[in-house]
């Protein structure tokens, strides 16, 4: 397995969605290849960071505006 092959299957690896044969090949490659170990570690961390940065909360004043907007629309439609 080359680095290109290994990096191509990292998403499947994180989801534990690989055949036992491919998994064994990847684990052997990771054992032998420091750049791919670094790639995997930073890929995994990136996934977590992007999720963390994107977990935004709806501002409270926006919730109130949405409620007022929907009530107005509902009343207008009745």
């Amino acid at each position, binding site marked *: 397995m080359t680095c290109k092959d290994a990096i191509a299957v990292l*998403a499947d690896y994180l*989801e534990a969605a690989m055949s036992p044969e491919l998994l064994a090949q990847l684990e052997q490659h990771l054992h032998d290849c420091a750049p791919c170990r670094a790639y995997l570690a930073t890929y995994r961390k990136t996934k*977590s960071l*992007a999720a963390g940065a994107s977990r*935004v909360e*709806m501002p409270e004043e926006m919730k109130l505006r*949405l409620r007022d907007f*929907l009530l107005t629309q509902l009343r207008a*439609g009745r």
Partner: protein
Amino acid sequence: MVETDDRTLLDCAVAGDVSALEKLMSRHPGRVYRLAYGIARNQADAEEIVQDVFLSMVRKGASFEGHAALTSWMYRVTTNVALNKRRGKRRELEVSLEEHLPTYKEDGHRDGDRSYVLADWSGTPEQKLLSGETRRILEEAIDTLPDHYRAVLILRDVEELSNEEVAETVNDSLGSVKSRLHRARMALREQLTRYLGPQP
């Protein structure tokens, strides 16, 4: 206590029951806003998207069968409305995405400076990485992902839908969704590594 299901609440809201509408709104706006903001990347557009989605929901009323149906519908409609809103604002970014993917030698092994390909900043605490300049770099990298890539990333990594559910939500093949997700993560990783590593 058994919670009133979404369909009953919707029926009541459509009939003018304010408390039913409020209960419904306490359950769902968070995920609709997160997804809308995640794709649109600005608060004003996200607010309009959330309004459109909820207005459409209360107008559709009883055509939903239950919580799962409503949740799937909300993800689908929010994604569509957000992507439509982005249309026209989209920049030509596919080329820059290619620039952020790893490069290889002819034999398939990593190309590039050894200290760069060995850079591993994953031991830095997440809280530290999500503050200051690193956060800005990450936000900018997310901003510049092509819209359809960003939508898949948010649905999978933030909303934690399965790949199959994401494919259904964006009406695309499973293979395409998996490819976009992987390329989006790789593009973000590359930009973070250019900033964070190699460490001296």
